[in-house]
């Protein structure tokens, strides 16, 4: 553990002491369930602990609510995908269902790919999924989307740069 990490954790401990109950009551006003508010407020601090660096924060409360909002959005997206997944599973006989653990991995991965591709044009996302999920070649993607092969290549590069490296090529 590096020295800066130790300071970070100390600093987060301070943040927790000073602002945790404020954050919790802010979340309680926003959400119906007090347990859920507690989960999210806890989640915010866990996120801070896992962050690579924690610079000094000038407006701690604004900062904490931003993370809490992001955390809620993630949670909702997760809920939404999980629900859709469970609905889809109902069409299949029980023995074919993945285990609880496999299901968690799958749902998490779908949430992750959603987040990584967020903001790209739909056609760019589709080209990427055809390639990465369905293993289609350039030619097949070009036919499927009715675009040229050079456009396919451009879309794939654009989507992959964002997906793997969080780099926006636009």
């Amino acid at each position, binding site marked *: *553990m590096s*020295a800066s990490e*130790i*300071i970070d954790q*100390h600093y987060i401990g301070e943040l*927790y002491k000073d602002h945790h109950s404020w954050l919790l009551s802010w979340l309680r006003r926003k959400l*119906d*369930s007090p*347990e*859920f508010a*507690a*989960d999210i407020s*806890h*989640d915010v601090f*866990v996120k801070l*602990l896992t962050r690579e660096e924690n610079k000094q924060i000038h407006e701690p409360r604004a900062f904490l609510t931003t993370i809490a909002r992001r*955390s809620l959005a993630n*949670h*909702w997206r*997760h809920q*939404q*995908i999980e*629900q*859709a*997944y469970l609905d*889809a*599973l109902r069409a*299949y006989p029980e023995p074919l269902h*993945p285990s609880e653990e*496999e299901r*968690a*991995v*799958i749902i*998490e*991965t*779908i949430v*992750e*790919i*959603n987040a*990584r*591709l967020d903001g790209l044009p*739909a056609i760019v*996302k*589709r080209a990427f*999924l055809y*390639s*990465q*999920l*369905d293993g289609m*070649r*350039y030619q097949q993607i070009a036919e499927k989307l009715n675009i040229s092969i050079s456009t396919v*290549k451009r879309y*794939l*590069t654009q989507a*992959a*740069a964002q997906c*793997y*490296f969080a*780099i926006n*090529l636009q």
Partner: protein
Amino acid sequence: MAALKINEDIAVQAVEWYFSLKESPQDAELQRSWKAWIDSDQTHYQAWLKIEQFNQELGSLANPISKTLTHKSVTLENKNRRQLLRSILAIAFVGAGGGIALQRHQLFPVMAADYRTGKGETRQITLNDGTRIELNAESAINVSFSINERSLYLLTGDVLIETARGEAARPLVVYAAWARFQPLGTRFYIRSREQDGLLAVYEGAVNLWQTDQLHFSPLRIESGQKLVFDQNGLSELMVAESSDLAWQQNILVVDAMFLSDFVKELGYHHHGWIHCDNSVSQMRVSGTYPLDDIDRVLRALTTSLPIELVYRTRYWITLKAKSKN
């Protein structure tokens, strides 16, 4: 280990290589020039690993239901997404308990590696070439066998590898963030974690290329030798000890380890956050600790060191200097 910053040019080159190879998997010439590109700069290699890592996660979506749902959810218009969201919101918060489930999900982003272990879990696997691997807790490895090479990607953690015999034509290569390894008929242990790396050879020998020196000639580590890699770089050669493999028995053996490092090590076997105050992080810990009851290990520490445990929650434990009273 600090990740290298991958700039836009290198990212674009990496994804272009990736799609070219995917389009023409049999093109030996292309593979050779790709290899040269990988070897020419350590950031190329890092970029490649980044692609590889997330692709392994995507591997979990190979079944038809997951694929369909991924297509649907990713390409859904934002407007529809908000509608869907509203209807789900109405039901989602009626009974949203499950605090720990949520916490766990957020704490441990799932990595769908080919083989992975969670907290406190070890696992033995025999690969289809006969190579045997054993993973320590919180470890993940990907396996990729092609006509020319058997590749193992140690994404994180500790792995003990016993190579299969009679596969000389198709070399085994192990990739980790800090180095690349080529065993020469052997049994060896590789560690690759955020804070450090280690190679210990128990039989045969292993050639090692440090990630930033892939184009140099390799370092040859013989049976009975080990070296570690940390923020100071590569260590001198040392003696490989059987205690380095104590994790196979779910035991941690340490000799004058910093408390901060010790606590990090315990964290691989504990469902929660343990950390120590900077006032005590430089204290030293020695001894042999069974890892199946971490709370007991922590209590034992409080008797041998002037520290106390502060439980903020059951899962958030801080070690700090004992208060004087």
